[in-house]
């Protein structure tokens, strides 16, 4: 087992393409996306599951610790512009043939 970083982003679904793009550009190629996330945030009128088109997505991506700085730099402008939140934490990856650390 070895240390990797977990990135969690909650944002409105209309941002999804932009965020995945930005992860890709930061060199983070694996991700998982959970759709239809309801929620209420710090901006007004964001409890949006009622309009199917405006629900939130929850994006999870695991990456190597050294990639975090790039991700943070690339994601911050998006968050400032369109809203959404991004959190980073430490997790241990179980080493397998194809894992984040195997790249």
């Amino acid at each position, binding site marked *: 087992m070895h240390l990797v970083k977990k990135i969690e982003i909650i944002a409105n679904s*209309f941002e999804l393409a932009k965020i995945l793009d930005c992860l890709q550009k930061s060199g983070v190629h694996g991700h998982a996306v959970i759709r239809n996330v309801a929620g209420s945030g710090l901006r007004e009128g964001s409890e949006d599951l009622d309009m199917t088109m405006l629900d939130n997505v929850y994006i999870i991506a695991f990456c190597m610790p050294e990639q975090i700085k790039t991700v943070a730099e690339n994601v911050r402008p998006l968050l400032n512009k*369109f809203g959404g939140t991004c959190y980073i934490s430490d997790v241990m990856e179980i080493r397998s043939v194809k894992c984040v650390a195997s790249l």
Partner: protein
Amino acid sequence: MNANLIVSNILNPPILFFFLGMLAVLVKSDLEIPPPIPKLFSLYLLLAIGFKGGVELTKSGINQQVVLTILAAIIMACAVPLYTFFILRLKLDTYDSAAIAATYGSISAVTFITASAFLTELGMPFDGFMVAALALMESPAIIVGLILVNFFARDEKREFVWSEVLRDAFLNSSVFLLVGSLIIGMLTGEHGWEVLSPFTQQMFYGVLTFFLLDMGLVAARRIKDLQKTGVFLISFAILIPILNAGIGLLIARAIDMSQGNALLFAVLCASASYIAVPAAMRLTVPEANPSLYVSTALAVTFPFNIIVGIPLYLYCINLFWS
């Protein structure tokens, strides 16, 4: 007679189920149409109305009336966001004004569909090419809105990725499915109608009913947002549809539309988008406050149009056309 029309409109199952949905939220029932069912229903309605329009367009062919109607549609779709923008600027900043103007310049397909169901029940004919007008009026307002932002926003010169903007405007799922179904209806004509109409016709009214039940839920949940919206925007959301419908009716009279078509055209002018345009605005004008443009369109203008507007515009038509 006006009251009469309103009552006969209200006593329709779709409208009553819309009220039932609103009531459910007010009394805090846990009734909900679970996602993504409403999405399915809206796809169905677009497919069915587009396909029917296409089949009828084949039958009628493209004549002068069609061309005039479509021109009128495009003109209104560009003019409405322009003049509403300046009305809105009286009280709001550029971003909010442009976003709301775009919302009201575009259309609500469900309002159109409700009006067409109302016409069908009254036995008043309307033409298939009105669906083409519906499709053409959805997108231009988005472009006009962004041009307004570009022109009037002082702080920074905005750079839109125009390829993305145009895609959002002209290829978003509702426009795409509507136009696609219209063309398929034209291609398959009478034959396609025979095989597909048991699905697209017989269930149509029922799906509309179910969908309006959901719209009632959605609209009522937005009502609490209206407190933050203020009196100006709420009156805007009622008066502007009437104004737009009025202008629409004048144009319709001028180019001699049939009564059924005139009602649908008035409804297109009067209605506001609460899906496609808000989605586009969030991406392109994030400075604007979504609760302003979504809530007014959804919680005020939409109910106003389907409850009072449709019979009101029809009443005017009855007056003017005879």
